Every structure is written in structure tokens, then in C-alpha cells.
């Protein structure tokens, strides 16, 4: 996204204006849901898009934060802002442990390890008493923000969600463009070289993982207040798959891609809701389609056109050489089998 600064500023202003007006045009709960998933996808994208690590277990952070927020707000009676902070903190803590374990392996193994660890969280959530098992935690009160602002009003809640989303999004944009962001991108492109330049790759990967987990938790906490519900769906592997799909559709390694992908898939789920299990089938088809012919995603494609890269037939083969995907070098470094 090397567009000129002026264009970016105009785009940002237009998007924020749209977001402010959205609840008067669209169903506010839908936009809130999409914003929660957009933040979740952006946090996930920080790992896959900028460090080149595919986590297949981000539902663990999203879901555990949802449970913690729901529990602390409903049972302990914490105000919403503290409940959300507690959720994000627990997710970051969990991310510290999972990241510490998972970064010992790379590529495909990293994905399997995060998936397995997240499945462990799922089973704990299924059995633990405070999560309510199959029922989840229902009727979570939204409470009063800072003891003053009543969040049970939908419009107030919407602007609260939008504010949290913008804060989370700003943190991610800032991180990507910081010196830290440059180092993690260097590690994605060529880890041995980054190490030889004196960067402690594992430490950077772990920090990025914790940040991603914490922000995913923030999204999960917010979601549990919006829907006043934390349930097993939030920690299940299907949720991990959905966030991968959102990011893939929008464009891996693009700033706005995960947001576009989240809105696209949330809208699709709303329209196809009455189709039952066909939603899963459609998601699968989109997965296959994206991997085979649309690896750049929506935003990735637009960005490459905007950059004047109008090499029409070469889109597919070109995608392998551009930077919007995990480095080939990582694939080559992955351990072989027999």
C-alpha cells in the first residue's frame, strides 16, 4: 500500500464518515458485529500478513476473552471498560504461553500447534463450570461505561464499539509502520538474514503474537458485550477458520483487507442465515476459490491496480513474487519428512 499520503488521508476521512453514518443506514447490530470481526481479522492479519505466521487457533484468544468479559461483568459486576480490559489481558496472557510454545516450530507445524492448543481451550470451556458449557454465558449486562454512559442503548453502544475498533486499528497501523513493524517484515521475508543482522527473531515473533492475541481478545470482549453472550462458538476451531477466511478474502498483509473481508463475510452470513449448513459450504468454496485464483484478496487486487501494475494475465503467477504473502524462503526452510 504505497499510495500517496494525500490519497490515504482522503480515504481515511471518507471511511470514518461512513462509519459514523452507518447506524442510520444499516442495521446497527450488523455493523457492530462486522466491526468486532474486523478488529479480530486485523489482529490476526498482523501475524499472517506481517510476520508470515499462520495461526489456526485465534479463536482461543477471541473466545476466552469473551468468556472472561462476560463472567467478570455479569458475576463480578465489573463496569464494562474493566471487563473488556480483563478479557484482553487474559487473551494476551494466553497468547504469551501459546506463542512461546508455538514459535518453536515454523510454517505448517506452527499452524497445527496453534490449532491443537486452541482445541485444548475449547475442551476446557466445554467442561469448566463458569463458562456454562453448552449454554454459554447469556444475558450479559452491557452496564454503564465509566459509571455514566448507559451502553444498553444501541446507538451509544455502536459508537463505543466504533471507538474501540478505531483504537485497536490505530494500534495495528502504528505497529506495522513502526521500526518494530519493519523488523517483523524483515523476519517474514528472510529470517536467517534478519538474525544475522542481530535481531532476536523469536523475541519479535513472540511480541507480535502477544499483541495479536491481545487485540483478538479485545475484539472478543467487545463481541460478548454487543451480543450479551459468550458461547462455545467463540472458541471453536470454526471461528479460527472464519478469521483466516476473512483475512484471505480481504487480502493478506494489507491494512484494510481484513476489514473488507470481515464486512463481506458477516454480510454473507446474514443473507445466507436461513440456508443452514450451506453457509459452511459457501465458506469452503470461497476458501478454495481464494487459494486457487484470488490469493491477493479484494484489497490486494485493488492496491495492485492502483499502483499501476496492470499486467492482466499475470495476476496468479505474480502473486507468488509479491510481498503480500508469506515468504517462499520460509517454505523452503520447513522441515521435510522421510
Amino acid at each position, binding site marked *: 500500500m504505497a499510495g500517496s499520503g494525500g490519497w490515504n488521508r482522503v480515504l481515511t476521512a471518507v471511511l470514518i464518515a461512513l462509519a459514523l453514518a452507518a447506524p442510520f443506514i444499516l442495521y446497527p447490530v450488523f455493523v457492530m458485529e462486522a466491526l468486532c470481526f474486523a478488529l479480530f481479522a486485523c489482529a490476526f492479519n498482523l501475524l499472517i500478513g506481517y510476520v508470515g505466521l499462520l495461526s489456526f487457533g485465534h479463536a482461543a484468544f477471541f473466545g476466552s476473552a469473551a468468556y472472561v468479559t462476560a463472567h467478570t461483568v455479569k458475576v463480578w459486576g465489573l463496569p464494562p471498560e474493566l471487563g473488556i480490559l480483563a478479557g484482553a489481558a487474559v487473551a494476551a496472557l494466553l497468547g504469551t504461553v501459546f506463542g512461546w510454545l508455538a514459535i518453536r*516450530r515454523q510454517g505448517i507445524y506452527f499452524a497445527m500447534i496453534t490449532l491443537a492448543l486452541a482445541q*485444548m481451550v475449547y475442551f476446557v470451556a466445554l*467442561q469448566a*463450570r463458569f463458562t456454562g458449557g453448552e449454554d454459554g454465558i447469556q444475558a450479559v449486562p452491557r452496564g454503564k461505561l465509566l459509571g455514566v454512559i448507559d451502553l444498553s442503548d444501541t446507538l451509544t453502544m455502536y459508537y463505543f464499539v466504533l471507538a474501540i475498533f478505531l483504537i485497536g486499528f490505530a494500534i495495528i497501523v502504528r505497529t506495522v509502520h513502526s521500526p518494530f513493524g519493519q523488523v517483523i517484515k524483515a523476519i517474514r521475508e528472510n529470517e536467517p538474514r534478519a538474525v544475522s543482522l542481530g535481531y532476536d527473531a523469536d523475541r519479535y515473533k513472540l511480541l507480535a503474537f502477544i499483541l495479536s492475541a491481545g487485540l483478538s481478545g479485545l475484539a472478543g470482549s467487545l463481541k460478548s458485550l454487543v451480543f450479551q453472550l459468550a458461547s462455545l462458538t467463540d472458541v471453536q476451531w470454526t471461528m479460527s477458520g472464519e478469521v483466516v477466511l476473512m483475512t484471505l478474502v480481504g487480502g493478506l498483509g494489507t491494512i484494510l483487507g481484513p476489514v473488507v473481508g470481515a464486512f463481506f463475510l458477516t454480510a454473507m452470513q446474514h443473507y445466507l442465515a436461513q440456508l443452514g449448513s450451506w453457509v459452511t*459450504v459457501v465458506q469452503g468454496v470461497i476458501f*478454495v476459490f481464494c487459494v486457487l485464483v484470488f490469493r491477493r484478496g479484494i484489497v490486494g487486487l485493488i492496491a495492485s491496480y492502483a499502483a499501476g501494475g496492470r499486467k492482466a494475465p499475470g495476476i496468479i503467477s505474480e502473486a507468488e513474487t509479491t510481498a503480500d504473502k508469506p515468504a517462499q524462503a*520460509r517454505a523452503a526452510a520447513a522441515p521435510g519428512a522421510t
Partner: protein
Amino acid sequence: MNSAVTWRNGESGGGQGQLTMFDWVHISMPPAPAMFAQLLVGLINGAFYAMLSLGLAVIFGLLNIINFTHGAQYMVGAFCAWFLLNTLGLGYWPALVLAPIIVGAAGIAIERLLLRHIYGLDHLYGLLLTFGLALIIEGVFRQQFGSSGQPYAIPPELQGGRNLGFMFLPNYRAWVIVASLVVCLATWFTIERTRLGAYLRAATENPVLVQAFGINVPRMITLTYGAGVALAALAGVMAAPIYQVSPLMGSNIIITVFAVVVIGGMGSILGAIVSGFALGLVEGLTKVFYPEASSTVIFVIMALVLLVKPAGFFGRAA
């Protein structure tokens, strides 16, 4: 995990631990028959872990793809047996041969039509593509059958059981253990001790060189994927009379099998077999002594193995 954790019997989300008939064992030192019964359950689960992780390892060796569709293909194998029985009247024994062939052929079609387009890409795309395929297959079956299971009877030849003195051994379960061991060892023998296996191992090391020696590597890749998928379907048929035939049976087991693969490392065929059976047994033992942890114990072991031996017990250092 502490006393605040409750164990819920027979929950649908109970993962591969669907064998909950003995979950009443809560006392710290259980009677011997209950313990042997749990060990048997563990061994059965282990047999399926072994067969599935074996197929994953074979496919990964040559294709460098982690076949996420493996669980779905295992499920389709079980449904294939169910269909053969309910539409054509073909029983368990024909299904044991036909289902792997049918599902394996479908696997070959998947490889030819889809997988071959992504060999040049990062391995992660293989995982994403097969994940999408798994969603499609599972969604279609769930649309058709809901999430409830279809019963599949034990073949008449294997009904009943025998009393071993210290425990009751159902005949079908004895058959599953013996048959899966035979299948695993036959696969190991084919890969490690035959000429075909030598080609396969060589192509895993260096496909370009093997191709230069006049061996049709792309065809070998296709057939290997078909064989790996057939193995999953075979496991599915064998599982059908034990677990119910359900659209969700695949996704529940495949994630556990991933953990088994991480623990064993994908460097060796024998490693996949040994770690599959061993972890099934460990899971069974956990159900005896600390049932609350039986669904998570394999993941905890995975975490511990990552700490001390990141490449897995049988894997090569990364």
C-alpha cells in the same frame, strides 16, 4: 484444570472421546476390569489416531501438504459404508474394500483438479485449500444428515465377545485393533522395504532427480494422495460400527491427530504408528485416573514435547 472443572458425560462436543460408556469411573483407584476396559477404549482410539496420522505423514512426505480434508475423508469413508448398506444392501466386508476405493478415487480427482495447482506455493496454501474442502464436504453432509449420528451395526461375524478372565473383550474391538495394526505395518513395509517404497522415499528427498531417472513423479504424487485418502476412508469404515456415523466425526478427531503428528514428528512412518497407539493408551489411562483431563491430555503432552523436543520424538530437527 482443578476442582472447579466438571466432567459432562456424553456431550456431543466430547471430541474423539465419544466412548463414554465407562465414564462413571471416578474413584481414584478403579477396579481392574474398569481399568482394562478404559485401556481397550484407549487402544481403539489409538488405532484410529495411528491410521490417520500415518496417512497424513505419507501425504505430507510427498506432497508437502497437510491434508486438512483427512478428517472429512475419514467421515466420508464411514458414510460410504452406510450408503452401501442402506442403498445397495452391501454389508461391512464389501464396504471395507469398496469404500476406500471410492473415496480414494475421489481423492485422486481432488488432487488432479485442485491440489496440483498449488504445489509451487507456500505450504500454508495447501493447508488452507484442504481446510476449505473439508468445510465443503462437512457442510454438505451436515445439510443432509444434521449433526446426529446414523447407527451402523457390527457385522454378524464379529458380534458378541469373549471373557478373558480379567475383562470382557468384544470381538469387534479385538478385530479393529488387529486389523489396524496389520494395515499400519503393511503400509510401513511397503514404504520402507519395497521397490515402490524406495521410489517414494527417493521422490520425497529429491523429486527432480527421481523424475530425471525416468519415474513418473506426478503420477506417483497422485496415487500417493489417493492411497493416503483411501487409508482415511478405511479407518472410517472400521470406525463406523464403534462410533456413530456422524458428519462431525471427522473434524473432532483430525485436530487431535494433528497434535499426535506434532508429538511424533512427521519424519518417520513407524513414528506415526507408535505415537498414535501410545497416545490413545495415555488418553485411556487418563480417563481412568483423572477423567476431567482425558479430552485435553494429548494437547498438554504436545505442549510438553514442544518444550523439551520441539521436532517431536521421531522428527528431524527443524
